[in-house]
């Protein structure tokens, strides 16, 4: 982006023009967002950020839509970010989470952005943190971030969101899956969606017994049952989110999470830059030696001493 273009973009953003927010997010996605973020960073810091993760098809987008509806009845301005995977072959993506949010498309106080993961592995896109920050700076008060349909190890959302919801559905695995490490560990709130399913009771029991034998801090993860398509259980989920938000403030964990989030962003920006630099210095010739040697050489050529 030209320097004039960036100035105009920042001016339009400050004037509250949605197109400027949209273009600022694109700039971050394209690796050109440093200046825009630097200019707008001070405006952020007021939003509540809730992450929703869980396996493909569990109902994350339907839950997002229901939470947006609830937040709107309370008059909050809402941002939604939904991440879907990019193709490892064509690098294209089909972003389909919006379908469930159609009722909110023309609400000026709801801004929805679909993001492709673009090879990022943690369940988010590389620019999801930037997009969250920009929506916050734009004045959205409640921000929902939906991860890609997660397997077991996409846990990055916990670093970004204040409250992480892990959605599970009945009839998909047994109590051993719940004991494995990974996304079940990052839940502040468990949601059993599709609560009308005959196996819902069993899943609830399994989650409860897993919680009894697992270690957690002062916050014991809550368990809420929903039928997101019918809006059932959403008030209870909202209350659980508010209880968790209150806990974060009272315990002082909110400040700690903010610091962790800052560190997470710094780490991802710095790591991204180093990765790009290293990519240009990889020697695959016979002089390269073993992979550890070659890595040290690549770092040394960048002036990085270990």
């Amino acid at each position, binding site marked *: *982006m030209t320097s004039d273009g960036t100035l105009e973009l920042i001016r339009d953003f400050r004037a509250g023009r*949605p*197109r400027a927010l*949209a*273009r600022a*997010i*694109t*700039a971050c*996605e*394209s*690796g*050109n967002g440093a200046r825009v973020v630097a200019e707008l960073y001070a405006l952020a810091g007021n939003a509540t950020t809730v992450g929703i993760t869980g396996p493909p098809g569990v109902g994350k987008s339907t839950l997002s839509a229901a939470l947006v509806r609830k937040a709107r009845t309370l008059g909050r301005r809402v941002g939604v970010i939904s991440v879907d995977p*990019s*193709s490892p072959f*064509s*690098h*294209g*993506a*089909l*972003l*389909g989470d*919006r*379908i469930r949010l*159609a009722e909110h*498309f*023309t609400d000026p106080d709801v*801004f*929805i*952005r*679909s993001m*492709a993961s*673009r090879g990022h592995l943690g369940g988010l896109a*590389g620019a999801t943190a930037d997009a969250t920050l920009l929506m916050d700076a734009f004045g959205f008060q409640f921000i929902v971030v939906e991860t890609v349909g997660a397997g077991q190890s996409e846990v990055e959302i916990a670093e970004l969101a204040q409250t992480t919801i892990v959605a599970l559905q009945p009839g998909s695995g047994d109590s051993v899956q719940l004991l494995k490490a990974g996304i079940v560990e990052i839940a502040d709130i468990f949601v059993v969606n599709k609560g009308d399913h005959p196996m819902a009771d069993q899943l609830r029991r399994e989650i409860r017994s897993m919680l009894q034998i697992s270690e957690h801090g002062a916050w014991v993860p809550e368990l809420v049952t929903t039928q997101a398509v019918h809006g059932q259980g959403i008030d209870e989920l909202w209350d659980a989110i508010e209880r968790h938000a209150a806990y974060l403030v009272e315990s002082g964990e909110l400040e700690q999470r903010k610091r962790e989030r800052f560190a997470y962003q710094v780490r991802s920006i710095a790591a991204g830059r180093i990765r790009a630099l290293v990519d240009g210095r990889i020697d695959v010739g016979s002089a390269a030696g073993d992979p550890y040697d070659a890595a040290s050489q690549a770092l040394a050529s960048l002036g990085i001493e270990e």
Partner: protein
Amino acid sequence: MARRLRIVVAKAGLDGHDRGAKVIARALRDAGMEVIYTGLFQTPEQIVQTAIQEDADGIGLSILSGAHMTLFPLVLEQLRAQGAEDVVFFGGGTIPPDDAAALKKMGVQEVFTPGAPLQEIVDFVERECGKRALLSS
């Protein structure tokens, strides 16, 4: 990190057939683009708001219901009202040649009729939406 093309593929009006739209969405995806799929029964306002929030380079609208002469102009009107004329607007469906010509005169950039080779559509989108992406980055 390159700027990737982002295209909204939408279905407007009352017909519930989205096979054609899905075939196009898939072809654009396989050509390396990020396709935002809105689902069925979208109004012109919904389509244009989606394109704005998603910072889409193009909108592809599929209409099989016969309502193309009302829906395409309404989308154009919305794009103008929102100051988003830079978004490339194209479409397809069961559209007679005379109507297609009329729509292009109004400002729809291309109208593909059934049987248009997928590659032709992909090439068009890459070329025209690529220009917008270049200007805005």
